[in-house]
């Protein structure tokens, strides 16, 4: 990573609080997300990293009783993703997401990848075919599935399913891609493929990734944030966080004294 280039801001959390009913899950989070970089969120279970991630595409709006305070600014247009006047569906059309457990739809491989395009009203066969192929190539799964696009997606292996889900998210050209522990359900070889892919993808899309695995954060990310009990403890360049963390709590976590 080159140190002299100034990173461009893609999004920024400002004074973000989040509540599941009465329980506060996020406490005054302030943090930048840089454009075309990979930012990793680490911390012990229950620290709020997934809750934070899911605020970026308003996933919490699906369940009653959830409440946000503060804002997440999205650039270049400086929209507040959490604004009450902003439609969560519009947010989700700009921000893609890949889940912990691969969740392909009970459809063919082709229709899985075309899903987001169809949601956007695209039904032209030629356009769909083009974009599906491109997305599958970007997700490094094209060679494995190009002859079986009409097979049912749930018949793929776990690692292939997860790359299919990445292709599905990429097909609509999201500006920000959220990964929620994308490899926790996969074996080491499939995990390696996904990590390589994340590294490749940051050329075209900003990535925010939650991971349980510190080595993974160190391997794939440019920036790392350490969260603990709903608070952002420390944010910085990944090398800096791992080599000389400023906060005692970050150091304890990284050196394995807790979590």
């Amino acid at each position, binding site marked *: 990573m080159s140190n002299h280039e100034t990173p461009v801001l893609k999004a920024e959390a400002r004074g973000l609080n989040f509540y599941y009913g009465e329980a506060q899950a996020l406490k005054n989070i302030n943090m930048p997300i840089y454009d075309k970089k990979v930012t990793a969120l680490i911390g012990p279970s229950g620290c709020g990293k997934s809750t934070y991630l899911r605020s970026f595409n308003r996933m919490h709006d699906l369940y009653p009783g959830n409440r946000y305070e503060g804002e997440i600014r999205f650039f270049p247009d400086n929209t507040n993703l959490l604004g009450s006047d902003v*439609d969560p*569906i*519009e947010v989700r*059309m700009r921000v893609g997401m890949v889940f912990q457990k691969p969740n392909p739809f009970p459809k063919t491989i082709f229709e899985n990848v075309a899903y987001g395009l169809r*949601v*956007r*009203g695209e039904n032209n066969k030629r356009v769909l075919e083009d*974009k599906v192929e*491109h997305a599958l190539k970007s997700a490094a799964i094209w060679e494995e599935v190009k002859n079986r696009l009409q097979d049912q997606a749930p018949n793929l292996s776990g690692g292939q399913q997860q790359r299919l889900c990445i292709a599905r998210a990429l097909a609509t*050209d999201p500006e920000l891609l959220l990964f929620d522990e994308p490899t926790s359900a996969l074996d080491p070889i499939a995990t390696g493929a996904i990590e390589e892919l994340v590294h490749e993808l940051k050329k075209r899309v900003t990535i925010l990734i939650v991971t349980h695995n510190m080595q993974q954060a160190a391997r794939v990310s440019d920036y790392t944030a350490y969260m603990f009990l709903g608070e952002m403890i420390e944010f910085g360049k990944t090398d800096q966080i791992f080599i000389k963390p400023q906060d005692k709590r970050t150091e304890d976590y990284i050196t394995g004294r807790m979590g």
Partner: protein
Amino acid sequence: MQPLTTDEIRIVIAKGKFRDNLFKAVGIFCLAFALLVIVALIADMVIKGAERFTLDFFLNFASRRAAQAGILSAWVGSLLVMLVTALAAVPLGVAAGLYLEEYAKRNWLTNLIEINITNLAAVPSIVYGLLALGIFVYQFGFGQSILSAGLTLALLILPIIIVSTREAIRAIPAMIREGSMAVGATRWQTCRYHIIPYAMPGILTGVIIGLARAIGETAPIITIGALTFIAFLPPLPFTAAEGGATAGLFDWVMSPFTVMPIQIFNWTSRPDPAFEVNAAAAGFVLMAMVLSMNAVAIYLRYKMRKRIKW
């Protein structure tokens, strides 16, 4: 590749939301319509039958004159048939459920029994009537009696009781079983002192639902040829019967009878509109019986779900 502009995206979203709301309206309409039909059904019976809701209606026999006709023989018949049904179906159903959950080995016989129970639940009730006509009425010589009707309905609701018994038993965690066997109890002792008592609320729910189904069944009872005009009650044990003899303890089971649904059917099919009033009133009584039984069962089930988990 040119991404959609913000305005284009907003149009797509607005269309989608419009469809969402349209569907929501249709959904609410369908739900309301289904409920409304039922409300209309109940209201119609209450209003039409109102003049018959007197004590006499419950204490009179059927009659050629609509205004004097009552449902005495019908509700007594329904209760007695239910008694036979419960006495036959509950022990059989619980025993079968217990066998399948606690004893059965995975073999062809168990599979056969399971597939059989699933398929029996889909057999139309009138087919049970034909079975009863051939076997109970003629083969066994039970005739068109309370016994024949009770056994017919018992076979009809057996799958319901077996399935709910099995579900109730399955909800009991293995540790209860292991705990009992570990202190040296036999399989039967485990069932007798642990499994059956713990599964009781679930079994009871199934029994009530089954009986509620049976009490409203008409077709199988008509099929065994039950008379539709009965102006007497089955002999009460130890009372004077015809010919100066004394009725035995179980003479009533062989007696001819009528039940509520048959009485309603009888009145509904008369051309004289005066009987419509009777049909409405009797229909309301039957529906009140069935719905209150079902309400108790549903209440029990929801209460069980909320009970502390193991």
